């Protein structure tokens, strides 16, 4: 939302008032602007100054108004002509010496300025590349207030900055993690490949130290490269959150691993702003929730909306905001409090009641959105020493990209992008099942108590497995492999309910 800065100077006792619902940072802007003007060699008018930030009913926050305030004062006191500011948007935090400091959300600001009909935007140098990603507005970066004034008076014009996002995206990503760093764990890698190929959410159960986090951290490397649209989308959220750290564009898929003490607002977003939460920062990337059972229930409950709709709507007293939140959820948990239940090599020291309680925490609506549940075992010494060629991320990614493009073609007509997004009603039409595959799923419902939802989840996963295998039909082996990834606690709850 663009804000107009109006300044009025008239005679009276020297004073400097800002109106228009400024927050503390904007109030303090008075002192920064006064010092910056004086230290840059301009006059600070010792008269009664009133600055109005319009629209007056919108709360203004942050130090980004400094530059606009300073320019408005210069124009009002006749040190520059008001015409020179016409059609320009200004944004930036001022240092006391008149230098310009970067602000958050530059790309969003540039976008808003363009939509408001501005033809130019001046902002701190550090933000220029990021803002220049927005087409249709001239973006110039300045180092200091003096530079800006010299540009406005025509003494020394600032150069327009351009940024080519396609080129940035095409730059190869050197170094970093790779799936081949993880020895063994072929079962887990296979499951992660399926999850990446179909956009499925996945839960890993295993003892501490089995390599769950290590595997999860490498999932972004096997996901398809970011498209330009996705990169810009993610950049916007990261820009608002101040996470860009000087980079103009997010070129890697984000990986977010919030600690299990994170609250519900921390996960989905909140605060006065409101500001985006972890689910939005993980946009188009991976959200990794380690120690899933340790998260507080409200935090896990809050994940339902983003998981289902791909957006979070947050309403606060001041404002409501909507952040995109499409991400792949990878969760990990110990099988019991000590972590060794079911471990062939170590004994579990937990009381059986504690184990049951631990496992019952991991139920409910969140698990309905998790298509694959796998066991991750501590690798044996033999597996660690195994020098057999491991699939590297690039090889897996190639297979994932191929499977995704098959899905995109099939799902184009119904507006979905990957198998995990298929609605229950669409499954029948989109999943062509072999006779015997159909039989396997029917058997599963009859014999091992597979629920209707479990059936649908298995069908989605089977579709992805078939896509990876390049098979247009789902065969029995695809269906049965999918069944092996199901949430096996379904049957147990069933027997409990019957008792």
């Amino acid at each position, binding site marked *: 939302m663009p804000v107009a800065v109006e300044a009025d100077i008239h005679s009276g006792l020297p004073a400097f008032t800002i109106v228009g619902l400024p927050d503390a940072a904007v109030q303090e802007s008075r002192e920064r602007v006064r010092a910056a003007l004086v230290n840059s060699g301009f006059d600070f008018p010792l008269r009664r100054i009133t600055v109005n930030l319009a629209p007056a009913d919108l709360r203004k926050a942050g130090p980004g108004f400094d530059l606009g305030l300073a320019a408005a004062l210069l124009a009002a006191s006749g040190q520059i002509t008001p015409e020179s500011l016409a059609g320009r948007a200004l944004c930036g935090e001022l240092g006391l010496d008149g230098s310009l400091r970067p602000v958050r959300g530059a790309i969003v600001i540039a976008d808003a300025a363009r939509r408001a009909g501005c033809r130019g935007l001046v902002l701190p140098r550090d933000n220029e590349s990021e803002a220049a990603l927005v087409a249709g507005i001239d973006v110039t970066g300045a180092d200091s207030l003096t530079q800006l004034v010299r540009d406005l008076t025509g003494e020394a014009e600032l150069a327009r900055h351009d940024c080519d996002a396609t080129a940035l995206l095409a730059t190869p990503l050197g170094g970093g993690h790779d799936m081949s760093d993880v020895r063994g764990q*072929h079962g887990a890698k*296979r499951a992660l490949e399926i999850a990446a190929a179909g956009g499925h959410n996945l839960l890993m159960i*295993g003892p501490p130290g089995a390599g769950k986090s290590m595997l999860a951290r490498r999932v972004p490397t096997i996901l398809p490269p970011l498209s330009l649209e996705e990169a810009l989308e993610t950049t916007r959220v990261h820009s608002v959150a101040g996470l860009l750290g000087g980079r103009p564009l997010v070129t890697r898929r984000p990986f977010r691993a919030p600690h299990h003490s994170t609250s519900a607002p921390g996960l989905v977003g909140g605060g006065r702003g409101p500001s985006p939460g972890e689910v939005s920062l993980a946009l188009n990337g991976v959200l990794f929730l380690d120690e899933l059972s340790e998260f507080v229930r409200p935090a896990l409950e809050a994940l339902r909306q983003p998981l289902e709709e791909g957006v979070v709507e947050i309403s606060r007293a001041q404002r409501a905001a909507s952040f995109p939140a499409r991400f792949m959820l990878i969760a990990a948990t110990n099988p019991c409090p000590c972590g060794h239940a079911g471990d062939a090599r170590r004994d579990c020291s937990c009381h*059986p009641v504690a184990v049951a309680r631990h496992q019952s925490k991991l139920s409910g609506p969140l698990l309905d959105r998790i298509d694959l549940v796998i066991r991750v075992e501590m690798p044996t010494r033999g597996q660690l020493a195994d020098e057999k060629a491991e699939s590297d991320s690039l090889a897996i990614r190639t297979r994932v990209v191929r499977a995704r493009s098959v899905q995109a073609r099939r799902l184009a007509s119904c507006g979905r992008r990957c198998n995990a997004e298929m609605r229950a009603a669409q499954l029948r039409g989109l999943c062509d099942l072999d006779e015997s595959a159909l039989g396997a799923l029917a058997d*599963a419902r009859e014999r091992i108590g597979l629920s209707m939802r479990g059936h649908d989840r298995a069908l989605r996963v089977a579709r992805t497995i078939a896509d990876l295998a390049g098979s247009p039909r789902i065969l029995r082996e695809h269906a*049965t492999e999918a069944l092996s990834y199901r949430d096996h606690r379904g049957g147990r709850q069933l027997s409990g309910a019957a008792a």
Partner: protein
Amino acid sequence: MSACDACLQRSALLAAAAGAIERVARRRSRLPALLALHDRDLVAALKIGHPDRSAAASVAAAATARGLTTTCAHAAEFPRKLDALPDRAAALFLRGDRSILDLLRAEPAAAVVGSRRASTYGLEVSRRLGRELAACGVPVVSGMAFGVDAAAHEGALDGGGPTVAVLACGADTAYPRGNLALYGRVARSGLVVSEMPPGFRPFRWCFPARNRIMAGLSSMTIVVEGAADSGSLITANFAAELGRDVGAVPGQVTSGLAAGPNGLLADGAHVVRDASDVLDVLFGPDGFRSRDRKHATPTLSAELQTLLDAVEKGEGTAEAIAGDPAAVPQVLSGLAELELLGLVRREAGGCYLRCS
């Protein structure tokens, strides 16, 4: 057939006197002698009042209301093996499949008992023993406690065979609470037994008292795991006093949990490595082989058979079985096939277990 009034009266008396017995029977050695007393002498020994005549009727009514059936020593269906106890349980309250009573009279049963906090090894062994014995039609008797007991019942249920849970509380109560689901399974396809009336909440003496019934019902008592002062040794003692066979599963000598069974082995108990060791004791060497297995496994393809063998050996994950990354999908798909055939089961931790 249901229990006679005199026997129900005895149950009511035991329940009413439970607190008094607890005080007198602090020393465990006094318990059998105390329980062997007739009603009149028991009342006198405990210095309590006689429960009134209507107690039997109200116990019977409560049993019916809670969906329990009863039997007693005077009924034809009563498991005669219990007669050997000096203080045989007078009335038994039952929930589940009463035809198992006939089986208990006709066939030898095996009690599988052990520690509540068992090791992975102990759980694995008792589950396997339970499964294999039950699959051979041998009733598996245990106490439905956590750990070894629960694993033995689960194994028996997985094996599709008979299992008997002897409880220290009323037979209508799932105790411990955490085994509610297991209680449901046993009540559906096995038999839950208690000598105490419905709704009864156990005192400490009730657990050794329950153990004497377990030992009494079984031709052989097998201790899987337990410390040197474990309750499962009480069961083994009862069995030895009755002249029944006692078996023990050998464990690591460094493990405290193996002290109980290893001690029994040192005293001459039968070594139990798997179900065939038990069958040899129950039916004599090679005695069982002439009989048919109750549940023949369907013929499997070579790959599925290999997988099944691997799971039987305790390899619970595709990772461990496959060895080769390329084989993982086939292994997973094969495990699911076995699961659909009802031959393996995926456990809460995510590992596969062999079942019937």
